[in-house]
């Protein structure tokens, strides 16, 4: 187990290095942040001064090593426009994004799995066909459009839910969360559903395919022959075997939910990390972009690791590499 963990950590570090080099060189090639940030009335001499102050006049490899040596001490640099540590800016906004992502994930599972099972058990029924049509819509309609339509219907026309922002928050261990207040929920529900829609469809399709496949297998027939109730067959035998591919996909999707909730965050003015990164890219705020991507890589690595561990819990046949040696 420990050698397995070690190799995973090394993998994550390699990914971090490669990613940071790519982003660094990429941003260097795109343009000079000073040309975007500087007031046009500044003189060329003032421009040069700022370029030097930010260290942008040095060769790119020198800038990179400076960044790495600082990063090793935990300092990812100050945002150019906020003049605050980039890491702080991101961590400040992380709870909002995590809350949104987990709420969306929960919706995807709670809505997606039952519907998927229903569609898998009686694939030819009218209900199943409606479920599948819904899932096609969920897949194919663009998130931003659905978001706007949801705002138009539920906020503008009906006036049931607020159109934007995060509701009242309560601190838990110093982390502000909004899912414990009614006002918080009223703000959370639309963006979370908007973000979840695609995942719901995905979960429905995966569950349905899994159920349909497993139902054909021999052990299900044996279980029936043994006289088990359909309910028990479903709960114990079918569901458990369907879960494995589902966990992989959901694990990866959770990462993308967190890292790329940006469209939903933009439409609903949700104060998460995604909005920060979009603003940062627009003005080439390199420290923020780098810090954000580093955190994303670390998060993906972590989630992958958790998924692998979960596997071995759900399916005892799966052994973590290196664990049994």
């Amino acid at each position, binding site marked *: 187990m420990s050698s397995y963990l070690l190799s995973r950590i090394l993998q994550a570090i390699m990914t971090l290095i490669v990613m940071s080099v790519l982003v660094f060189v990429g941003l260097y090639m795109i343009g000079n942040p000073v040309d975007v940030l*500087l007031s046009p009335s500044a003189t060329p001499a003032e421009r040069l001064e700022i370029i030097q102050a930010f260290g942008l006049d040095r060769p790119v490899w020198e800038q990179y090593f400076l960044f790495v040596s600082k990063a090793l001490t935990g300092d990812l640099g100050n945002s150019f426009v906020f003049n605050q540590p980039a890491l702080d800016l991101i961590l400040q906004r992380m709870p909002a994004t995590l809350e949104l992502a987990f709420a969306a994930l929960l919706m995807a599972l709670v809505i997606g799995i039952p519907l998927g099972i229903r569609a898998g058990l009686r694939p030819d029924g009218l209900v199943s066909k409606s479920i599948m049509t819904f899932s096609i819509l969920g897949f194919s309609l663009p998130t931003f459009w659905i978001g706007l339509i949801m705002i138009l219907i539920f906020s503008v026309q009906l006036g049931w839910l607020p*159109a934007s922002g995060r509701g009242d928050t309560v601190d838990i261990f110093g982390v502000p969360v909004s899912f414990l207040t009614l006002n918080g929920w009223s703000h959370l529900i639309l963006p979370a559903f908007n973000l979840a829609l695609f995942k719901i469809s995905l979960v429905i399709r995966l569950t349905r395919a899994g159920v349909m496949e497993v139902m054909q297998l021999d052990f299900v027939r044996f279980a029936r022959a043994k006289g088990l109730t359909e309910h028990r067959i479903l709960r114990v035998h079918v569901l458990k075997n369907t879960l494995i591919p589902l966990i992989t996909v959901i694990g990866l999707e959770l990462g993308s939910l967190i890292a790329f909730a940006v469209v939903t965050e933009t439409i609903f003015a949700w104060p998460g990390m995604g909005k920060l990164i979009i603003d940062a890219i*627009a003005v080439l705020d390199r420290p923020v972009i780098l810090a954000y991507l580093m955190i994303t890589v670390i998060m993906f690595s972590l989630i992958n690791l958790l998924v692998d561990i979960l596997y071995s819990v759900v399916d005892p046949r799966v052994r973590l590499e290196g664990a049994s040696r």
Partner: protein
Amino acid sequence: MKILATAALAMSVAVLPLTAVARDLTVGLAASTTSMDPQFYVVGPNSAMARNIFDGLVNQDARQQIEAALAESWERIDGTTWEFKLRPDVTFHDGSDFTAEDVIASIRRVPLAATNSPSSFNAYVKAITKVTAVDPLTVRISTDGPTPLLLNNLSRIAIMPSEHAETTTEDMNKGIGVIGTGPFSFLSWTPGESTVLTRNDAYWGEKAEWDKVTFRVFKNSNARVAAMLSGDVDLIESIPTADTRRLEGSDGLQVITTTGNRLMYLHMDQDRETSPYAKAPDGTNPLLKSEIRRALSLSLNREAIVDRIMDGQGTPAGQVVPEGYFGYDPALPVETYDPDKAKEMLAGAGYPEGFSLTFHASNDRYPNDSRIAQAIGQFFTRIGVNTSVETLPGSVYFTRASAQEFSLIMGGAAVETGEASGVLGPLLETYGDNAGQGNRGRYSSAEFDAALDQARKTLDDDEREAMLQKATGIAIADMGIIPLFFLDNTWAMKAGINYEGRSDGYTLPYYVTAE
């Protein structure tokens, strides 16, 4: 009027205590304030937020003209010394008195706040050589030469308590020392999300109407409009042109529009024999000839661009500042659309067959910028200039434009000083170490430079305005830039709320009134 309104409110409270109006205002902003330090970064959203909390010695009014603020009056003692009489009995939000020491400390703090700034306030104080207190309510400011724009520059410098002269930007971002004399005092700030202010009951002017103001940031314009339509906010700024009619047509909402101070213009490569994207049949750079530049200007139907693409939210421009601004020349008309004359001029300059041109513009920096660029490209093509249009994200575009990688580009310049030299200098002065930073076309005219330089040193307002008009006349006659139009500023708000709008686009709740 104010007393009446208060009385009416008091009555309504007395009669219907349950439906009493909460005097809170929620504002939807288009861009986030990046720092609570008013002296950190010269950028619109920061300056606008600072105006709510801080005052300058003087402030800019809704049309960017100078008005008295913390200085009640001022006079010039000689060519380089100014004396300011400070307003008595003004207190900061922390209760301390405002005196001459605070002015000295605030001006001195500017270089400190410039640390790590992507665009600092140093430029506004660099002419100042000495600030002294004559008595607690009199300040003398000396400059290194005649500085007619001293008041405009001072209007940009927020006055803070002298105890906070050493407070860093980092501390202010944490909320430490965000103390001014303005109509609202600071309550909280979450970057990119919201800022909350409360009324300063000890304000030296008339008190603000709102107990509490919450600013929320909606970068996405659809989200901003949706928040307005659903009633989440009371007022929003910069409405996308396509949504204006919809908001105007909605019950219980109103839209206001004012001419803004941002000039949209074209820069043409004017100092290279061959240019990367403008090529005559013989390979030379046709944009060097002023007749050609004039022909391009004549080919543009500015009215149509404003009407069709901007949904009317703009004012065609024939010079660098809008009407009513210092340095505006009433004798300079907006170019009349005349494609036939443009063709004649092209032929007269030796290009009857036109030439080939690639026109570059940003696609995410100004309202409808890529659509405006497409329209301009079509107007050029109509007079025989074979034009293709390429639009790029601003983050890529500005670096390449500064490096002179393009031949003809579109830009937008805000008249931040409220008078013509604020645009003439950066866009048209001969490029050098201390001038012409934004002159990406490298227009250069000794005559123009001399006129502008003289204007900058002339203290007499009438003479100075005449010099600015002269400089503008020279640049426009040479077609150093092609002015297109001024962007309008727009706001939408609930019925019952009024805002007169500002040419600088700032949303200042102090001037928002309720009926």
